[in-house]
């Protein structure tokens, strides 16, 4: 319907012989500079202010992408009826605006116009195949059309391009339902997607809370640190080695230090990231700075012990292990510190190492670190 009409117009303008009509792709971000205040208002979560700014602009000065952002603001304000009209105007003016087609499809789906939504999603796929949102919407449309097979493919595609974003939980949730419908033999996969969806929702809930705090107080270092930890926790929880999360975490930690250069836990976490990247000298300096600011940082003390031990500085390593043991908060941390101290210092300080290992085995008789043979060897060595 709407799209068909647009294609006819485009054909009249651009058709040449039997060649298919060439509709130029339109990217509304070309107007970002002229609409920076509008976009900033939307980022702040204030679509009403964005709309006021747009309304205040003289019509003849409105940039090409104005309607795109107006429609987005209307959707953010929950005014979908008006947004639909603006999207329709936008795709009539810029038939190559793939994102506009995708958002219009979202509204049409909401209205139950599945055929209309499908047309516009096809256009979105044509003009912005890289836009993950259209894959997500196509998956939802497939679900509404009871096509679980297509929906599964689309959601998996979506997760390849955006595995941890705020919409990824939706894709996992949908996959959970798809596998649940396939019967008990698919229960494990349904449970897997349910767990990831729940975890992602939790992460994004925390992140949204911290972001709100930062909006209210841009100097809130604790909130900035909270955002950073959501990336790092997601990396360690999902454990699939996606270093994009570490890069995001790194940037977020740097932001904390811009607010408060003496935020010890952020410094220690940056140290962990550097150690993970093999930059031990830089990592050591960061850990040292962290414990200088906050001596009771267990993880930083432990890491300093490990770095020093592996560099052959056993005396300082021992001091850091002792500090880690002293500031361990609970048996789990204490066990970990004792095991690492015993393991790393076995050759340089066998008597002290044996003490560490005995204490470790007393706390963890099941020997999760597999250090009982080392302890036995040291017993024999020292006893002999």
């Amino acid at each position: 319907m709407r799209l068909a009409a647009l294609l006819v117009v485009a054909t009249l303008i651009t058709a040449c012989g039997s060649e298919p009509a060439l509709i130029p792709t339109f990217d509304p971000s070309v107007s970002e500079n002229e609409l920076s205040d509008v976009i900033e208002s939307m980022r702040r979560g204030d679509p009403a202010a964005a709309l006021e700014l747009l309304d205040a602009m003289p019509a003849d000065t409105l940039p090409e992408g104005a309607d795109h952002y107006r429609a987005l603001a209307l959707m953010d304000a929950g005014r979908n009826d008006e947004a639909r009209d603006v999207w329709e105007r936008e795709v009539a003016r810029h038939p190559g605006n793939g994102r506009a087609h995708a958002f219009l499809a979202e509204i049409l789906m909401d209205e139950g116009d599945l055929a209309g939504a499908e047309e516009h999603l096809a256009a979105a796929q044509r003009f912005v195949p890289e836009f993950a949102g259209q894959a997500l919407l196509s998956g939802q449309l497939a679900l509404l059309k009871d096509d679980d097979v297509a929906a599964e493919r689309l959601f998996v595609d979506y997760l390849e391009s955006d595995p941890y974003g705020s919409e990824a939980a939706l894709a996992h949730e949908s996959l959970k339902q798809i596998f649940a419908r396939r019967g008990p033999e698919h229960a494990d996969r349904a449970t897997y997607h349910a767990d990831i969806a729940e975890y992602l929702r939790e992460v994004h809930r925390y992140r949204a809370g911290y972001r709100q705090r930062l909006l209210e107080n841009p100097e809130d270092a604790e909130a900035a640190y909270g955002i950073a930890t959501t990336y790092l926790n997601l990396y360690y929880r999902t454990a699939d080695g996606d270093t994009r999360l570490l890069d995001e975490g790194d940037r977020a930690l740097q932001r904390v230090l811009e607010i408060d250069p003496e935020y010890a836990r952020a410094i220690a976490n940056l140290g962990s990231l550097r150690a993970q990247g093999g930059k031990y000298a830089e990592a050591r300096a960061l850990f040292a700075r962290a414990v200088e600011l906050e001596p009771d940082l267990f993880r930083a003390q432990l890491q300093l012990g490990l770095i020093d031990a592996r560099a052959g500085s056993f005396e300082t390593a021992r001091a850091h292990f002792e500090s880690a043991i002293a500031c361990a908060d609970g048996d789990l941390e204490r066990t970990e510190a004792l095991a690492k101290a015993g393991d790393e210092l076995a050759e340089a300080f066998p008597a002290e190492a044996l003490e560490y290992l005995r204490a470790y085995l007393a706390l963890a008789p099941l020997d999760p670190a597999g250090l009982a043979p080392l302890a036995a060897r040291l017993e024999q060595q020292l006893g002999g």
Partner: protein
Amino acid sequence: MSRRLLVTAAATAAALGACSPPPPAGATFRRVDDIGAALPTLRCGTPDGQDTILDVNGNGAALFDADGDGDLDLLLVDGTTRSDLVDGVPVQHHLLRNDGGLRFTDVSDEAAIVMGGWPTGVGVADIDRDGRPDLVIGAHGGDMLFFNRSTENTLRFEGEPLHASRRTPLDWTTSVALADADGDGLLDLYLVRYLELDPADPPLGALDDGTPCRFHGVDVMCGPTGLPPQPDVFLRGLDRAPWFEDATDAAGLDAVPAAYGLGVLFTDLDGDRRPDLYVANDSVDNVVLHNRGDGTFEDVSSMSGAAADMAGAPQAGMGVDTGDVDGDGDLDLVVTNFSDETHTVYRNDGALLFRDVTAAAGIARSTRPLLGWGVLLRDFDGDGHIDLFVSNGHVYAQADDPRIGSAYRQPQLLHRGRGDGRFAPSDFADTTPYPGRSVVCGDLDGDGDLDLVVLSLNEPPRLYENLTDDPARLRLLTLRHEGGEHAYGALVVAREANGRILARPLLSASSFQTSSAPAVSLACTSDLEQLEVHWPHGEVDVIDGALVRAGQHTVLAPTRGVVSSSPLLRPTP
């Protein structure tokens, strides 16, 4: 599945059972202002001081035959105010006796249904098995049983605290539902609980930790998020006083997380003739509990697809009802939710798996600005398709603020079912918005179609007469066990000559804090060939359709089939 073919068709039966042609699409309702008695404004907080969540949920109602004269009387559950609750001022409920012809007499004083606390939802059942319908009334501050002690000349109830449900002085029951969960022939009771709030010291403007209560940047009352949710309560029925005992833990329900419960269904959702439970929870996942048949339930919420919306996000569930929206013979669900959310349609895909089909059903856009409470899935226009009625009204007095993007007074929503899972908007009698809350339905005037009573916050209830008035097409069915009690949780599956299947449940509770008439309404557009009755924990009786005649009120019982039949359109006294 075990089936009993009860009666063979008589030769002339088809002619007797023939249905009239399809009616014009869409039910027409007329608001009836003069019903003889005054429809009282029910108390629920003070109109100008609704600053806590206690003040905004509204009241309960039931349609049942209190005096045994064969028609539906109207019980309106009154509420109170926080100060009266703290002071222990008793609450008297309103009972309006049906005199026929949509005329009522207020018999509240005679009935003496009086209790403490802040009463909320109501259930109706013959608890003491004396042949008269009794009441369970939930409350903040202590649930009550009311035994019907009426005689031929008097209408009277006797109240007794429901001790088995007592947990703390701050218990807050919202909806209640009854069904025989374990097959022992006794009705069990499910009490939905909301949250913990001390009426003497409620959070005003901010939570205890100082977090301000805001919605879309507007200061609003607090809750439910941030207040402690309360776990629901399951009571097993007993055959003697005290009539119920706490079986929450024994039924495995202690493992279900506490939640902000508001609406409930207690009916068979997976076709095994064991009543399952569905609880609509505010702001957190809804709960689907599979009845294992041995007195215990399994929480299958997470994988059911009916715990949250399509995106897996929990919604603010308020009311819930079930009906066969797409005409495939099983029971689908509709849950009402908050503004900015949709009222959500879950299609039943079997084995307690549901699919959010709200957008495909065509109600996503129309319901997104609305905050829904009572909901009914019934065939209001008698075309054989399930229609949808939702009572809407916002909880925030500030809802008209543009930042909230909704309205305090909202339109009531009537959507005509198309029979294929989709709904189409339909005009409702009252176009004036008001703060709607609960809704009950039943045939108040004896013409076979379903009339409505819609409650609203701090305004009198509204009674709407259904003008479908086509007794040649309509049937009313009462399903009773041998002892006479209603077979809550039973399912009627009618097969028409045109191939259409009509599945209709008998529910003790649906919507929100209400109990609609305990009868099944059936309208067909071709000859009714066969009727199956799926009795809870029992067999499936197959009855020749010709014996369940149009224009009749038919009473059915297990193994006996048709027990009695009487014409609709009783003469007005």
